[in-house]
């Protein structure tokens, strides 16, 4: 997706990498709550947790972009989507930053360009693409999200 010139983002540390989530998606950041594994789900779903009475799935950020597994999750970035909250795993406390220094495109799936942040590199996440990529039958999610008005890709079956 086209990256804006300046992107207000939450930087999510995952292992040695840093991912940027556009601030509009982020509801809150919480420390890792008690997780209930979701049996039979793909590896990118770490489990379910209780966020004030709501059942929220925790997704493995590394797995979503296609880089294996996030080890030792310590924080969760709670995204607010039209289909309810979704958690992304982080290995250290996320922080806020402005992404302005676009270095170039990024290669991983569900990402939208890499940025320079001080001495570090941050890869901006395309949250929609990231979440849509979760379901092999992507059309299902697109249907579900369309029904609820989530801005979605024009990917149709």
């Amino acid at each position, binding site marked *: 997706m086209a990256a804006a010139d300046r992107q207000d983002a939450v930087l999510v540390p995952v292992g040695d990498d840093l991912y940027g989530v556009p601030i509009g998606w982020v509801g809150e950041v919480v420390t890792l709550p008690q997780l209930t*594994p979701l049996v*039979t*789900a793909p590896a990118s779903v770490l489990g379910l947790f209780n966020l004030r*009475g709501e059942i929220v799935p925790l997704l493995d950020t590394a797995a979503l972009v296609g880089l294996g597994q996030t080890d030792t999750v310590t924080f969760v970035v709670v995204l607010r989507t039209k289909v309810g909250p979704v958690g992304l795993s982080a290995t250290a406390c996320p922080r806020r930053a402005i992404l302005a220094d676009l270095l170039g495109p990024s290669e991983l799936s569900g990402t939208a360009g890499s940025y320079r942040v001080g001495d570090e590199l941050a890869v901006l996440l395309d949250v929609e693409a990231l979440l849509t990529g979760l379901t092999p039958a992507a059309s299902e*999610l697109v249907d*579900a999200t369309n029904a609820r008005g989530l801005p979605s890709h024009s990917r149709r079956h």
Partner: protein
Amino acid sequence: MAVLSAPQIRALFAQEAEIRLAQLGQHLLALESNGADMELIGSIFRELHTLKGSSAVAGLPTVSDCAHELEGLVEDLRSGRTSTTPTLIDTLLAGVDTLAEVIQTAVAAGDAAAPGPAPIEPAPARSTGDAEPAAAPLTPPAMPADVTAPADVIAPFDVVAPSAVISRAPDMAPANVEAPPAMAVPAWTTPADAGGVVMVPLERLDELTRLISESASAHLRVGRMLSDKLKLDPASITEFNELSRALNDLQDRAMRTQMVAVSTVTDALHRTVRDLARAQGKDIRWDARGTDTELDRGVLRRLSDSLIHLVRNAVDHGIETPAERIAAGKPPIATVRIHAMQLGSEVIIAITDDGRGIDLERVKEEANRHGVSTDALSDEDVAALTLRSGLSTKTFVTDVSGRGVGLDVVRTNVEAARGRIEVRSQPGQGAEFRVIVPITLAVLRCLLVEAGGARYALPFHRVVRSESGQGTTRAHAEGNDMVWVDDGQAVPLSVLTETLGMPADSESVDGPIVFLADSARRHAFRIDRLIGQRDVVLKGLSAVLPNVPAVAGASVEPDGSILLVLDPPGLIQRARQSRPVRSVRPAPPGAGDETERPGILVVDDALTVRELQRSILERANFSVRVAADGVQALAMLNELPSDLVLTDVEMPLMDGFALTEAIRATESLSNIPVLILSSRSSDADRQRGLDVGADGYIVKSGFDETALLTAVGRLLGSRL
């Protein structure tokens, strides 16, 4: 499960209807000059019939009702009960206009708020010329012109408001009017009356319910904090207890907003009984009890078709004619009763008749014919076979057990509402069908089990039984563990943790066993521990997640932890797939193997129906081809056979019966299972379907995705 979205289906229907309406207009005009042309009459009938079917599938009942009325008029013509007169043509043409109007409104509004169109009235004053008896089936609408007013002023005997009204039963003269039955409109479709009722969008109610449960869980956390940090026992604090009570009440009331009384559907049932009894010359007293029993709106809506099916069966197959009753020493007036009652967290709706009961001998014969031994079964178990055609036999889908058809479909629908159905029958005394459903879908009675250190909830209506595990008779077949059960059958046995892909932390080979069932089979699972029964407030999983078939949802426990509620059918499916397998073709629904997807040929002249079926079946991972009539279908099959043929009955060129016959007569195709899907629900049609060699017969009115997939799965499953 989004297949085609409702607006998509309606758009498809609108497209189809436009063409059919134009055709109808032309045909009718042609009929005017050539009134005896049976082929023409047949075409008109077919167009109307198809419109009816398609609109029903598109979820536009006002349209299908209207088409149905017109179809009735043409049926009379087709069967020679009436003959073509200019007046009749006028009426039909006016009817088609009305139909067009209704379609336009309904498609635009999604049928939610389609206002009733003006009634289709016979053309003004018939001339004496065509007043011969045969040509006068069209009594003027029994009602004055205010039929289009809101439902509560609709007088007796008109068709379900707010659809178009055509009165055509000559014997329904006002003189016959007994106590006017209340209108056959389910309450949820009627506008709210003035009694202080407001309409609230559902999502607002849901939001409210969600907020209340959030408050409740915050409250629990406060309680924990009080005891952890302040060393206070929350139960000793009056204010805390008051808040607990208030929150409990709130939760209870919030749930009640979703409840409706059973009486909202009993009027329609009464109507069904009455009409059918009149049509069959039977004298039936309708008795409704406990109709103020409330249950979840969603549950009741899912049940209403099944209840209609059951009372229809009672009248049709249970109740004898007055003469037969007198001969049997019974009172000539029969009784059909509905009795609803709440029992704990369940509602029981019993439909009882005092007719001839279920012909157990015939059921046995039928079962034996399909290789099921009935020797060891009690009468009750034999009666229950009528509900289990799929479980007990492999090759027939419809129920030809002397108790009408489609009871297995009823059962599937009841199970979809997380309920179960029981049957009792006394030969000569009558039969009783009990539909037992949870009061609300949001609260699910579950069996809690522990396996691999985690707790899981299993919906109770799917649990056949559980046993300690010691002393069970084990068996082994084709590399699989089996366990014997009472009725002499061996049920496959899996370890729950293995099926779920979780590590098993105990090596207990003697753990308890739970027997789960989906609509067609049983499967046993070994667990570590039985914990007990519990009502679980079920929440769906996030839509972001990929489909997880073995999990029905989850629930937040009072201590804040999350309890997974497993879905037995998905679990069974998974267990069967993961077993060391015989060479099995991928089990149809949900299987992911692309290499050998079973192929289905869908034959229907209605575009809407065809496409809907295609989308349902493709989603269930079948490879689907479509044909618009029998001739085309046969040509396609000769080119490349399918694994199953799903066909409509009424079609131009070659109808479904002829197609089935042709398939059976072709050597290379004769083994292909044929499933007939028709809106013709009469026994004669069904019998004809079976006679020509169909393997199953689904009535479109009872048609839904689950029923279709169940039937298809069953037929394909039988060929593995």
